[in-house]
């Protein structure tokens, strides 16, 4: 039985490399996110439904926010997998936890994107 079959294989080069790529994107996106929603927000940082909808009416902002949430969930999920690989050695338990992580990641990916698209 290979390591892969037993579910104890590490993330590999793809996981390693894209954690860095997504990290760089998140760093830049967070700068924008914090600037727009906290530091430069008018009315003493008061974020109202109207101000958010006004911003989201621009399709470029909507695209940015979707890319942002997809990257953030990917980075978080990959990080969580890394931690699971480090601490959970028992195959069965690991499979259960990884399955839970996948369900969680897909849930937040769908819910987050749908919120931005205004369907949720």
């Amino acid at each position, binding site marked *: 039985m290979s390591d892969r079959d037993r579910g104890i294989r590490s993330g590999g080069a793809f996981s390693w490399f894209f954690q860095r790529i997504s990290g760089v994107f998140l760093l830049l996106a967070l700068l924008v996110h914090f600037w727009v929603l906290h530091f430069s927000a008018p009315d003493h940082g008061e974020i*109202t439904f109207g101000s958010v909808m006004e911003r989201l009416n621009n399709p470029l902002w909507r695209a940015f926010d979707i890319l942002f949430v997809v990257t953030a969930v990917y980075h*978080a999920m990959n990080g969580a997998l890394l931690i699971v690989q480090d601490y959970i050695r028992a195959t069965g338990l690991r499979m259960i936890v990884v399955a839970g992580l996948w369900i969680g990641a897909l849930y937040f990916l769908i819910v987050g994107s749908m919120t931005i698209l205004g*369907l949720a």
Partner: protein
Amino acid sequence: MFYRPKTGMLAWILFRTTGILLIIYLAMHITVISNLHNPGKFNETMAFLGSWQFRLLEIGLYAVVIYHALNGVRILIIDFWKGALFQAKMFWILAAIGLVLFVAGAYPIFTHAMYWKHNPDKSNYHIIEEASIAQETFLAGWEVKDE
């Protein structure tokens, strides 16, 4: 018999801890915002989350984000350049940069918090009429069943 903690180990423990905190925060952030699909509910919740107490908590979140981001930069320099040769030194240089960024960013958040502490009556969260118009414009392009 005790393992002497070194800078690299400290950086790693903090990186992992802040990473777990950010995963929890991201989950909460998406869940809360997904429930704010009508202007009344949105403004009602934001009046709570935009209170000065929550704004002070946001400063803590900002600190966690800064640490995770800057140590991420340190890891990039270690992995893609010869950062391993000076990773401990880099930790303290980035700590100094992080402190500056923290003060620069925490200041506006703090002043906003103090403003809302002293002027809670000036909030616009009770005005939802304009918000409704903005929502209609936004949803115009999407086929959405009215709840």
